[in-house]
């Protein structure tokens, strides 16, 4: 995918101030990139504002990210992305246990708790899509009818089926590798248009997946009178696989590889580098830069980097008059110049936390007080074990398959559903393998030389980590707010988070732990799961301790709904109260079910782009 030369320099602070764009888009992640591309293709004049620098738009820039990642000893999920004091972002090293009544202020996010989250997102060109794992399951129809079907949560204001065409567009743009024959599931009510199939075939299950599958086939569980047979299924993923020659009636599909200003031979197919999070070394994984490259083929699409949107200014009619932008000259200095950008419409695409933050910092709480409220993030519960045989752990992508049979069922009236990932990278997320194993084997087992190598291989080779991604319902008390006491270096207000996973989710977590035990038993695996009460994510539920981790799937803060009194945006993500303002992204989602949200974010972006084109 070629990035047009000079595309990043089409405009500057002086020129931008003089014109009114058709659309001003804040944020260059998946949502911003897709909307910019759709509008650009239709001949509209678009300005994309990106807070980060332009790194990542060339292979040399991408190479900088890779070098930083490979060189660092602490490989957290943001490690490739440099600290930028003018555009701070949350990092997992910020996470701490929260003392009630004492806000945690040492990181970018100010956390009131009670739950200390380690959620992160990436404020760079192409956004968190550089860092994401790239699982792309569709939501389920019941996820859209939680209130009707299960008496919990809220209903979406639209039917799941109304998004089908947009889902297909999103799966095309993101380049999803999967097969309808694998994903179709009447029990989950997951159906696809007749004749549809994905652009590329499923990423093959790993050997570890297959060992787990063999072990659990034939096992079923019963929940509230319903039986579920367990099995392992591959996940749909936005990374390049074997193209499907039958895609789009035989048109086939050409995978999009690495982005650069010149032709690059890289990223045409996943090689199994195993560090998808936080960065794919070859760009076989989708990132929004690939869509931005397309968007920028249109000379009327402009992008301004190092531009932090700091205030949305309204006119007396409740329409956006302009957005104030702070342009910093260098990340190392808080000096900035101000400018105002104007458009016929404005689209906020900065993610659920930042969209809400910007609205509230601009004094734009809605009359119903819902901006920032209903913050959701998938709750992750980890369980890990040592398999009785070699499983070839540490090969392939982070995750190729999982147990998804419990994504839906009558039990959702009582407890959260979940999808379980089988991690191909061992106990990394749980305890910090393989470094963890190295320390253990050297410091405690006192091994060295060939014995050290053998023991490391023996241990790591057999590591099985199950990560249960658990549904979280909207709860108005979980929220993003702002407080003028907490500012960043540019003087922008930081997000203040109040959050705890709801009981509904903890019931699901408790069940997930039981299921993990059952699975390990069937596999003959030794359960090594242990939850340390000193951990920041430790939560007790019914006298049992669990550690809940954030999923970085942020949603709910500008919830979509059927009317202005009960929601912030309509079904096209247009603000009820400000007719030329759209808030795009996870923040619009009323529920998150058991689907990683990026595919649905992309889907909603296509729907919004269509709606925007009708008015500009």
């Amino acid at each position, binding site marked *: 995918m*070629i990035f047009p030369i000079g595309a990043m320099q089409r405009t500057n602070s002086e020129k931008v101030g003089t014109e009114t764009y058709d659309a001003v888009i804040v944020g260059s992640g998946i949502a911003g990139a897709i909307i910019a591309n759709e509008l650009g293709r239709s001949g509209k004049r678009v300005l994309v504002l990106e807070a980060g620098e332009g790194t990542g738009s060339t292979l040399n820039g991408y190479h900088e990210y890779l*070098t930083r990642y490979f060189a660092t000893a602490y490989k957290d999920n943001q490690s490739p992305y440099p600290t930028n004091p003018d555009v701070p972002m949350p990092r997992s090293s910020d996470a701490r246990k929260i003392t009630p009544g004492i806000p945690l202020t040492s990181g970018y996010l100010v956390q009131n708790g009670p739950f200390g989250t380690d959620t992160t997102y990436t404020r760079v060109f192409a956004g968190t899509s550089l860092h994401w794992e790239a699982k792309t399951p569709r939501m389920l129809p019941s996820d859209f009818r939680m209130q009707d079907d299960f008496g919990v949560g809220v209903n979406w204001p639209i039917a799941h089926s109304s998004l089908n065409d947009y889902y297909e567009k999103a799966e095309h743009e993101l380049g999803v590798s999967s097969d309808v024959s694998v994903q179709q599931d009447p029990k989950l009510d997951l159906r696809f248009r007749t004749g549809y199939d994905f652009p590329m075939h499923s990423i093959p299950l790993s050997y570890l997946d297959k060992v787990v599958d063999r072990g659990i086939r034939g096992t079923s569980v019963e929940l509230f009178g319903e039986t579920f047979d367990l099995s392992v299924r591959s996940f749909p993923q936005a990374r390049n696989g074997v*193209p499907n020659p039958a895609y789009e009636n035989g048109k086939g599909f050409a*995978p999009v590889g690495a982005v650069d200003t010149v032709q690059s*031979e890289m990223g*045409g197919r996943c090689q199994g580098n195993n560090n998808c999070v936080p960065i794919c070394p070859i760009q076989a994984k989708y990132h929004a830069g690939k869509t931005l490259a397309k968007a920028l083929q249109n000379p009327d699409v402009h992008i301004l980097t190092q531009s932090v949107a700091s205030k949305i200014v309204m006119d007396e009619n409740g329409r956006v008059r302009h957005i104030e932008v702070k342009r910093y000259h260098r990340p190392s200095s808080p000096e900035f110049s101000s400018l105002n950008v104007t458009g016929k419409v404005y689209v906020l695409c900065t993610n659920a936390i930042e969209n809400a933050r910007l609205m509230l910092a601009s004094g734009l709480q809605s009359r119903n007080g819902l901006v920032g409220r209903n913050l959701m993030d998938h709750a992750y519960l980890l369980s890990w074990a040592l398999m009785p045989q070699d499983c070839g752990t540490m090969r392939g992508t982070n995750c190729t398959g999982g147990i998804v049979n419990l994504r839906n069922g009558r039990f959702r009236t009582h407890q959260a559903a979940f999808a379980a990932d089988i991690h191909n990278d061992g106990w990394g997320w749980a305890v910090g393998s393989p470094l963890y194993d190295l320390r253990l084997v050297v410091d405690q087992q006192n091994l060295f030389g060939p014995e050290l190598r053998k023991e490391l291989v023996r241990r790591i080779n057999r590591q099985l980590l199950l990560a249960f991604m658990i549904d979280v319902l909207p709860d108005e008390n979980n929220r993003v707010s702002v407080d003028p006491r907490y500012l960043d270096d540019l003087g922008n207000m930081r997000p203040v988070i109040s959050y705890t996973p709801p009981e509904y989710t903890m019931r699901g977590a408790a069940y997930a732990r039981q299921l993990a035990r059952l699975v390990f038993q069937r596999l003959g695996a030794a359960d090594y799961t242990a939850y340390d009460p000193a951990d920041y994510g430790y939560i007790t539920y019914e006298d049992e301790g669990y550690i809940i981790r954030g999923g970085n799937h942020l949603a709910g803060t500008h919830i979509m709904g059927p009317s202005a009194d009960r929601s912030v945006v309509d079904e096209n993500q247009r603000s009820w109260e400000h007719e030329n303002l759209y808030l795009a992204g996870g923040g619009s989602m009323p529920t998150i079910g058991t689907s990683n949200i990026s595919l649905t974010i992309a889907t909603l972006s296509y729907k919004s782009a269509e709606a925007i084109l009708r008015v500009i």
Partner: protein
Amino acid sequence: MPNNPITTIPELHEHLKVAMQLEHATIPPYLLALYTIRPDTNLEATRILRTVVVEEMLHLTLAANIFNAVGGTPDLIAPDFVPKYPAHLPDGETDFKVSLRPFSCAALDTFLDIERPRKAPTPDKRMIHKGARRFAFSLQHPDDPKHELAYYSIGEFYEAIADGLRYLNNEHCKGGSPLFRDKNQVGPKYYYSGGAHLIEVNDLKTALKAIDTIIQQGEGFDREDGGGFIRSIVTDDGELSHDFRFEQLKLGRYYLTKNAEGKPDKPGHPTGPELKVDWDAVYPTKVNAKLTDYTDYPELHAAAVAFNREYFCFLRLLNSAYNGQPNLLLTDLVPKMFALRNLMLQLIHVPMPGMTGFNAAPTFEMPSEEITCPEKVTQ
């Protein structure tokens, strides 16, 4: 000399065998140049070299597809398949030598010679009298082994194959038995790089498209432009052809396929961003190293022999892929490519004892004795 030397199947097969040899012959020199670049330097040169060498592998596969489709049987482990370097390739009136060199201007010059063959001044000069040259790949007339064929250039060689395919297809249509069949094709499922241009060959159209791809990606052949033939830097697919990719390194500037005027840059006049090359950040491997260079150094000798054997076994496995087991490309061959790279790097990093300023290098001399290759890696 006839303009069209291919009028029988055996002649066609002979030419296609040589085509495969030719495509393969460029791979060791390109790989060596690529791997002699010091890590984390010359990123642009690395990417360009890598793109080109992956496309050569595509060409090899395309040649195998054509060969299979017309009833041939690829044989990558025939004794003369891997040439002895320096190898002589035809280029106009004289030959040029292809050596195993570290990344350098001299290496680039050779690559440009390979990728930018000359067109014969007139069609009847396509073939050349044998006495004038020493074509590395002996093209013998199948019915008369003493009669050797030689071509003006690689481009002309492929044009002759294309003509031969057309001629024979025509003849066979008249006769009633098809020239082409669906046999042992390697499709895009098994080979995913090189611009995803892999073509399964089963008729004249696909065969000619395959040849066209080989020629196009290599030469970006002359294009008619309102009167005469003008070299274009781009192929039909709008991508830079190999020779211009290499030329960027020599000229120190990128070519733009779409410049300020919306047109591709003119040859010799790139207008893209600067392209820096650090010619010193290279392991100075000995040019055309041979096993005999290592006779006094048993460890080095053993490593060099190990590489040659590994390469031979790789070719044997690749041969199976081209002879009905394309799945090996996915399961075994790609991991083996990484292993080969590691063995090459082992040699490249070692300074030559007794020869200051030079490093060791793989020799690509295939074992003449029977060797056992390890079992396939996957179950």
